[in-house]
C-alpha cells in the first residue's frame, strides 16, 4: 500500500517534471532556431556605427562584448536543450518504471458490461461503410494530387529533352559567340584583349594591345589578367641591393605608395601620394631615369579633404594599368586619371571618395579598351568599366558585397572571358564586356584583401578567418574543396598548372594540389609578407617585408632556387621584364638584372 502510494507520488512528480521539461525544451528550441548570434540587431547597429567611426576603440570593445554575449547565449541554449533532453529521458524512464510497477502491482479488474452479445452484424456494417469511405477518400485524394501534378507539369520528359536541348543550343550559341570573341584571344589570353576585326575600334592605332604584347609587357598588378603569372624569361635569381650585385639601377621614388610597377616597352610606371600630393611617374626601363612626373594633385572634382587611411594602406595603394596607349592611375580619394606616354593628361575624373576605413586599394585592370574599376566601398559597392580613350562609362554593376581591398582578375575560362572579384560574401564573375553577372559563390568572408587566382578551370579565393576555397568552374560552379589551415589577409594566392600557392602575411608558404586540395609542401619564411607571390620562368618569387626575395621552384615538391636581398623593405609585388625584375622598395625603384 505504502509502495503503491510512493509509486503514485513518484509518477505524478516525474510526469509533471517531464511535461514542464518538454515544454521548456520546445520553447528553447524554437527560440534557438530564430536566433542568429552573428547578426543580432544590436550587433548590426553597433557595426554600422563602427563603420562610420572606425577608430572608436570603446565601440570596438562594446561590439566584442555584445558579440561574446550573443555567442554565449546561443551556446548556453544549445547546452540547455542537450542537458534538458537527457533530464527528460531520465524523468520519462522514471515515470514509465513507476507506472509499470503500479500496473504490475495493481491487477486490473475486468469490467463486464452489458449482456456480452455484441451485434457483430451491425459492427460489420459499420466497418464496411468506413472501408468504403476510406477507399473513396483515397481515390479522391489520389486523383486530386494527380490533377495538380498534371497541371503543374506542362510537358512530358520527352518535351523536357527538347527544352534542355534548346537551352543547350542557346548555350552553344552563346558559347560560339564567346568563342568568336575569344578566338580573338587564345585560351590562355588572360586579359582577353585583341586587335580583332570584330571589336569596335575607331582606328588601328588606338587598338588595345594584342595578347603577345600583354605577355611581353607587364600591364597591371600581378601581370597579365592580374593572375600572378608572368611570361618573361631569364629572370635573375641572385642579387644584392646593398653591394649592388646584379642591380642594374635603383632610383628614388619621390612620393610613397604601395602600388607595384607596371611596364610598357621601355617605360616603367607607378604612382605615389601624400595628403595633398598625388602623382604618377614614368621611369626609363634601361637607365632608371625619371622621365616625367604627372602632378595629379588638383584634378577637377578632386575632394578638398583627403580621406583618412591607415599607414599600411596609404593613399596610393592601387597599381596602375595601361592599354598600350595610355596609363591609368587611381588614388584613395577616388581621383582617376588617364595619361598618355608623355605624361600628358588625357582625361580625369573623381569617382567619389570611397567609404573605406583602411583606404582604397583595388588595382585597375584593362579589358580590351575598357578600364575596369572594382569600387567595393561601404554601402554601395560596384564594379564599373570606363572607355579607356574617353573615360566615358561603358557599364556599371552594383555589387551586394561588403568593402574589399582585393583586385580584379580577368581570365579566359575556355569559352569566355571572366572578370572575377572577391568580397564578402561572394566570389563573383562578370562578363568584362558588359558587366553582367555570370556566376557567384558564397565562399568568402571578412575584410577581403587577397585577390583570387585562376588556373585550369579552377578559381581560388582566400581570406584570413575565412577559408581557402577552390571553386570549380563548368556548367555548374561548385566548391571543389576548402581549407582553413593557412590563410592570408594581404598576399594573394597564385595558381599554376596543377597546384596553388598560398603565402600568409606571417610568412608561411604552402603549396596545395589544385584538384584535391592536399597539401604538397610548406615552408616557413619566418618573416612577414605583404607582397603577392608571382610565378615567372618556372619559379615562385616571394618578397618579404624586409626586402628579401625568396625564390622557390614552381613545382609540387619544395625546392629553393635562391634568396636575394634588396637592401630595403618592400611590400609591393614585383614586375617582370625579360631578364629583369622591377621591384618597388619602400623608397626606391630597383631594376634587377645583369
Amino acid at each position, binding site marked *: 500500500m505504502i509502495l503503491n502510494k510512493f509509486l503514485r507520488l513518484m509518477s505524478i512528480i516525474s510526469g509533471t517534471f517531464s511535461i514542464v521539461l518538454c515544454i521548456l525544451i520546445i520553447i528553447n528550441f524554437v527560440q534557438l532556431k530564430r536566433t542568429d548570434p552573428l547578426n543580432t540587431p544590436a550587433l548590426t547597429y553597433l557595426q554600422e556605427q563602427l563603420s562610420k567611426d572606425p577608430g572608436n576603440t570603446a565601440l570596438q570593445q562594446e561590439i566584442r562584448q555584445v558579440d561574446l554575449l550573443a555567442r554565449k547565449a546561443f551556446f548556453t541554449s544549445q547546452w540547455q536543450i542537450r542537458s534538458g533532453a537527457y533530464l527528460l529521458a531520465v524523468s520519462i524512464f522514471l515515470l514509465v518504471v513507476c507506472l509499470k510497477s503500479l500496473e504490475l502491482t495493481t491487477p486490473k479488474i*475486468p469490467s463486464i458490461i452489458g449482456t456480452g452479445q455484441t451485434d457483430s452484424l451491425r459492427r460489420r456494417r459499420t466497418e464496411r461503410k468506413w472501408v468504403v469511405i476510406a477507399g473513396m477518400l483515397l481515390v479522391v485524394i489520389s486523383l486530386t494530387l494527380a490533377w495538380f501534378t498534371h497541371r503543374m507539369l506542362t510537358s512530358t520528359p520527352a518535351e523536357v529533352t527538347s527544352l534542355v536541348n534548346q537551352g543547350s543550343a542557346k548555350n552553344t550559341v552563346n558559347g560560339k559567340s564567346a568563342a568568336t570573341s575569344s578566338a580573338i584571344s587564345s585560351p590562355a589570353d588572360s586579359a582577353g584583349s585583341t586587335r580583332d576585326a570584330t571589336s569596335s575600334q575607331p582606328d588601328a592605332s588606338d587598338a588595345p594591345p594584342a595578347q603577345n604584347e600583354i605577355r611581353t609587357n607587364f600591364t597591371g598588378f600581378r601581370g597579365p589578367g592580374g593572375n600572378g603569372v608572368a611570361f618573361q624569361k631569364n629572370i635573375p635569381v641572385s642579387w644584392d641591393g646593398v653591394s649592388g650585385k646584379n642591380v642594374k639601377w635603383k632610383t628614388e621614388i619621390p612620393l610613397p605608395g604601395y602600388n607595384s610597377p607596371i611596364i610598357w616597352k621601355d617605360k616603367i610606371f607607378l604612382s605615389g601620394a601624400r595628403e595633398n600630393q598625388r602623382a604618377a611617374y614614368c621611369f626609363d626601363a634601361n637607365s632608371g631615369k625619371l622621365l616625367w612626373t604627372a602632378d595629379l594633385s588638383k584634378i577637377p572634382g578632386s575632394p578638398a579633404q583627403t580621406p583618412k587611411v591607415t599607414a599600411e594602406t596609404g593613399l596610393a595603394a592601387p597599381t596602375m594599368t595601361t592599354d598600350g596607349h595610355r596609363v591609368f592611375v587611381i588614388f584613395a580619394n577616388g581621383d582617376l586619371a588617364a595619361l598618355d606616354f608623355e605624361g600628358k593628361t588625357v582625361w580625369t575624373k573623381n569617382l567619389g571618395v570611397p567609404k573605406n576605413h583602411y583606404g582604397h586599394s583595388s588595382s585597375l585592370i584593362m579589358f580590351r579598351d575598357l578600364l575596369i574599376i572594382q569600387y567595393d566601398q561601404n554601402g554601395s559597392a560596384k564594379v564599373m568599366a570606363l572607355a579607356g580613350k574617353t573615360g566615358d562609362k561603358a557599364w556599371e554593376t552594383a555589387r551586394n558585397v561588403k568593402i574589399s581591398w582585393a583586385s580584379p582578375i580577368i581570365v579566359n575560362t575556355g569559352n569566355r572571358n571572366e572578370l572575377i572579384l572577391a568580397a564578402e560574401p561572394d566570389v563573383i564573375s562578370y562578363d568584362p564586356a558588359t558587366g553582367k553577372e555570370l556566376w557567384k559563390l558564397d565562399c568568402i568572408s571578412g575584410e577581403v584583401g587577397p585577390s583570387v587566382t585562376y588556373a585550369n578551370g579552377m578559381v581560388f579565393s582566400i581570406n584570413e578567418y575565412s577559408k581557402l576555397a577552390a571553386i570549380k568552374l563548368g556548367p555548374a560552379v561548385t566548391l571543389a574543396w576548402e581549407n582553413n589551415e593557412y590563410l592570408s589577409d594581404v598576399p594573394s594566392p597564385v595558381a599554376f598548372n596543377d597546384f596553388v600557392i598560398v603565402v600568409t602575411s606571417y610568412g608561411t608558404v604552402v603549396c596545395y594540389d589544385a584538384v584535391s586540395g592536399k597539401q604538397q609542401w610548406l615552408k616557413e619564411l619566418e618573416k612577414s609578407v605583404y607582397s603577392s607571390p608571382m610565378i615567372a620562368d618556372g619559379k615562385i618569387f616571394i618578397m618579404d617585408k624586409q626586402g628579401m626575395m625568396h625564390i622557390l621552384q614552381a613545382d609540387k615538391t619544395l625546392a629553393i632556387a635562391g634568396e636575394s636581398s634588396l637592401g630595403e623593405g618592400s611590400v609591393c609585388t614585383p614586375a617582370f621584364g625579360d631578364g629583369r625584375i622591377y621591384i618597388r622598395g619602400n623608397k626606391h625603384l630597383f631594376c634587377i638584372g645583369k
Partner: protein
Amino acid sequence: MKLKRLVILVLFMSGLFLPAAMSIQRFPKPEFESGYVEPVTQFPLPRGEFLIWMDVAVLLLTISLASWLVIKKRSRLGVFWLSLFSLAYFGFYRQGCVCSIGAIQNVTLALFSGNFTIPLAVLFFFLIPLIFTLLFGRTFCAAVCPFGAIQDLVAFKPMQIGAWLNAFLGMIPYLYLGLAVLFAATTTDFIICRYDPFVGIFRLNGSFGMFIFAGVLLLAGVFIARPYCRFLCPYGVLLNWMSRFSWKHMTITPAECVQCRLCENICPYDAIDFPQTKKDPASHRKQINRVILLGLLVPVLVLAGVWTGSQIHRTLAGVNSKVRLVRLLQTEPMLKDKDELPEITAFRSSGVPQEQLVSEVDGIEKDFLKGSRIFGGFIGLVFGLTLSGLFRTPYRTDYVTNRATCLSCSRCVDYCPVIKK
C-alpha cells in the same frame, strides 16, 4: 662566466624568436579560452561479421523464447520481460537497425534491382519473423520487435476505439506497404527508414520533427495501444497475412471457454472476437446475389485501382530525386536562372549530360507508371478482399483471438480462469 653564457644563450634564443616576433599579423587571432579541442574526425567501422550473425542468433533465440512463452507457458510476465530485453538489444543497443520492418525495402530492392545484393542477415531478419508467425502467430510483435516493445511499455490506459476508426485507419498499413515497395523497387527512397519514428529515440539523435512524431505516437499510445503497429506498420500487413494461417496460435483459454466474459474488454488492440451465434438475416437468395456481386466487385476495384495508379504515377514519381531535378529544369527553361538551387548545382558538377538525365528520368517515369498500376491494383484488391471478408458472417460460440490482428501479447491469458488439467 656562467652569467656570460646565460646572457649569450638568452640573446641567442631571442634571436631565434625575433623573426617570428616581428612577423605580426594584421589582426591577431582570437584567443579561445574555453579549452575547446578540435575533435578528430571519426569514421564508424562496419559491423563485424560475427556481430551480424550474433544479431540473427539473438533474433532467433528471442522469437523462439517468445513463441514458447506465448504458446506453451502462457506467461504475460515472461512476454513483458522479454520485450524489455528486445527493446534494450534491438532498440537501444542495435539502434533499430537492422530491423524486419525496414528489411521489406532491402528485399524489394534485391528483387527489382540487379545491382543490389541483399545481405543474408537482412534476409533472415525479413524471413524469420514471417516463418515464426506462420507457425505460432505474431509472437514477433509480442516480444521481439523493439517498436512494439516501446509502445507496449507506455500503453497505460488503453481504450477500445470504435469499429469505424479501426476499419478506417486499418487500411493505412497497406498503403504504406505499397508505397514502400514502389519507392524501393524504383530505387527512389527507403521511406520506412526515412520516416522511422522511433529510431531517433533509440539513437538519442534525430531531427526535431521526428522526435515530435515519436512523442505524439507514444503519447497517443498511452490511450490507443500500439498506434504504429496497428495503423502504420507495413511489416504488420505481412505478419497479419501469415498469422491468419498460423499452425498454432495463442488462445485465450487453454481449454473450453466457460463464457465468463472476463477477457472481453481486456484486449487493448480490439483483437478479441466475440461469440457470434446470430444468423445473417438476409435470405439465401440475397446471400447468393451478394457473393456474385462481390465476385464482380473485387476485379472492378482492382481495375479502378490500376486506373487510379496510372493517373497518380507522375505525382508518385515526383518523390524520385532525378525526376524532381528534371522537373525543376522543366518548369523553368531558363536553366541558368536555377543555378542557385543545390540540386542543379550538384547535378552540373557531376558532369552528366542533361540529355542522359532526361532519358534516365523517362525510364524512371515508365517504371513508375508500371509500378503505380500494380500498386493501385494491389490497393484495389485489398479493399475488395476486406469488403468481401466483412460480408461474411462467421459463426462462433466462444471468445477467440482474431488471428490476423492479435499481437499475442498474452494479456487476455491472465484473465482466463480456466485451467487445463
